[in-house]
């Protein structure tokens, strides 16, 4: 959890808006630190978290969580965190000889054209079992986190199927259960937009659905050691707020956090 980002977004683990769909996207930079931020943020807030980690192994998220002050292994034992480890489960699904039950979350690997119903059933099951109070513990509103939805594109799922999946998730998690949803998607370079089924199309579709978009981009002037990129924050107008809903910051990722500053105010140039 990065305190600077919390103050920019005006939210703390004790008080945050519910029913939000937050979209993190990146281009020529890496926005995965935002996923780690939100993972530790919602675990501290006591929410029931369902995490679809499609890019890295559990030990990676756990090691980073340790640095940010949350223990994923404990949260998983207590039932606060449901973790789907895509890398570990994928080759079992694809290389097994016998086709067993069809309701596996990763069954789309075998037939990418069939859509993501199995994955959605998994998400629905894990967010609905919150607050059962089986061990005397009840968690807050459910949260769905997806590390890199565009991996699904690489695995052959179509943009339409992915957007359907997110709409279903939004209806269940955000509207029905008053929870939150954070999705990371990675975009291609601008000049690659001739690709019909590309991740740029996916990103545009998701921006259309989301309430808050955080777009990370590499510096337009090129690589720099001390400024890792810029972040554009965009709020969907809600209620009476008609102020400037778009802000741009530069950022630098550290070992245990990230710092955000106004453009041109890096300590390397001042």
């Amino acid at each position, binding site marked *: 959890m990065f305190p600077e980002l919390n103050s920019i977004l005006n939210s703390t683990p004790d008080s945050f808006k519910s029913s939000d769909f937050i979209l993190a996207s990146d281009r020529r930079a890496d926005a995965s630190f935002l996923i780690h931020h939100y993972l530790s943020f919602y675990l501290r807030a006591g929410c029931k978290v369902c995490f679809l980690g499609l890019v890295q192994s559990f030990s990676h998220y756990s090691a980073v969580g340790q*640095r940010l002050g949350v223990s994923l292994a404990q949260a998983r034992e207590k039932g606060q965190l449901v973790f789907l480890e895509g890398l*570990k489960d994928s080759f079992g699904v*694809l*290389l097994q000889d016998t086709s067993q039950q069809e309701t596996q979350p990763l069954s789309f690997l075998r037939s*990418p054209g069939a859509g993501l119903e199995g994955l959605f059933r998994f998400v629905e099951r894990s967010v609905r079992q919150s607050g059962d109070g089986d061990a005397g513990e009840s968690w807050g509103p459910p949260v769905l986190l997806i590390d890199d939805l565009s991996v699904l594109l*690489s695995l052959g799922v179509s943009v339409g199927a992915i957007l359907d999946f997110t709409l279903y998730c939004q209806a269940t998690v955000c509207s029905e259960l008053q929870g939150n949803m954070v999705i990371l998607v990675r975009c291609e370079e601008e000049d690659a937009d001739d*690709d019909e089924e590309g991740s740029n199309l996916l990103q545009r579709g998701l921006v259309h659905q989301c309430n808050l978009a955080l777009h990370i981009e590499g510096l337009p002037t090129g690589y720099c*050691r*001390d400024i890792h990129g810029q972040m554009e924050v965009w709020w969907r107008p809600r209620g009476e707020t008609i102020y400037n809903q778009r802000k741009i910051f530069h950022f630098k*990722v550290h070992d245990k956090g990230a710092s955000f500053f106004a453009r041109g105010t890096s300590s390397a140039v001042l």
Partner: protein
Amino acid sequence: MAAPVRGMAGSTSIGNTTSFQKKTRSKLVSIPGTRPSVQNGQLLVSSGVSSLDYVIGGGLAVGTLLLVEEDRYDSYSRMLLKYFLAEGVVCGHELFLASARDHPDDIMQELPSPIVDDVAGMKISEGQSQPSDPENPDTMKIAWRYQNQPKVQTALASSVRFGHYYDVSKTMEPELRQAAKCHSFYQLQEMPVATGSSPLPSPYHALLKSIQTVIRKEGFDGSTPQSKVRNVLRLGLHSLGSVLWGDDVCCKDNPAHCHALTTFLYILRGMLRTSLSVAMVTVPSHLIQNRAVMGRIIRLSDTAVALESFKGSEKETNPLYKDYHGLLHVRQLPRLNCLSCEVPDTKDLAFKLKRKQFTIERLHLPPDLSETVSRVSKTDLAAGCGSTATGNKHLDF
């Protein structure tokens, strides 16, 4: 004049003993040829080229995948693959080599010969140091204080020795090569298998099956208990994505199998993460028309570098590049167990093939703008604005 020479001989032998201690310390690591990373504690192996190790953050972490985008004639990328395999042979790792064009045994026969100066050579020099010193023409007579200073190195290297050096002008001795355990996969000799409902084309499916069998059978997945000595499996996969693998991602703008290679890499990475293995994959990226597919391939690997050879391009005659044979682009650095990845000083890197060695060097130094730099002239500049134009050091506006 004799006294300083004598003293120097003594100090060189001390230097030798310290480097010997380092050797024994590295043997404490349970698997030969590995060391823990200073940044995140990951177990690293060398790629065989020490300057490449430096560029990608100290070495290849076990359980990760290195993607090499081939240069146009596949000469330098093939050399990197051979370095990677040769390092595995010298460290006693197990190898898995898959290829579709050349037979894996042919590639194995071209491995570069290791330069075994470090252990054996040092013993000899230590034994002979006393008598041979006066005749040694390298011994400095006048500026003897500089004798023990390290030579100015232009190649990128970390301070700690890791990995071995190779002589590319010679091939490795057959005895050494045959001592290594090598599994191979030659696509043209494989029978097409029925893939059932798998979305992968049959060569990829067969290759994954074959890798999985090796990992399971040889116990790299940690399933076998401590009875066996732990070892690392090095996978070298040559020219994935080319037509010979049954893939059409290279020849069409809108390929039918455009998800085959990405799915393959995803599954492969899943297998690597759960086992003691490390992979180097070369891909002919200059043939892939669809840039979006190439971007996804890079994202699905952990480390990605691209080789751009000057051969046949107009850069060959550019005087800026006259010392080099090509450019090395670092497309992606791994982010493992930590929030931030290794941040290099500069991304302008070039490689050259010397008579015996492949090295990567900085093309030019980066601009001196960073938080850590100490700029003494900064206060002068600030004062210069207010004062009258007496300062002759800086221009005043």
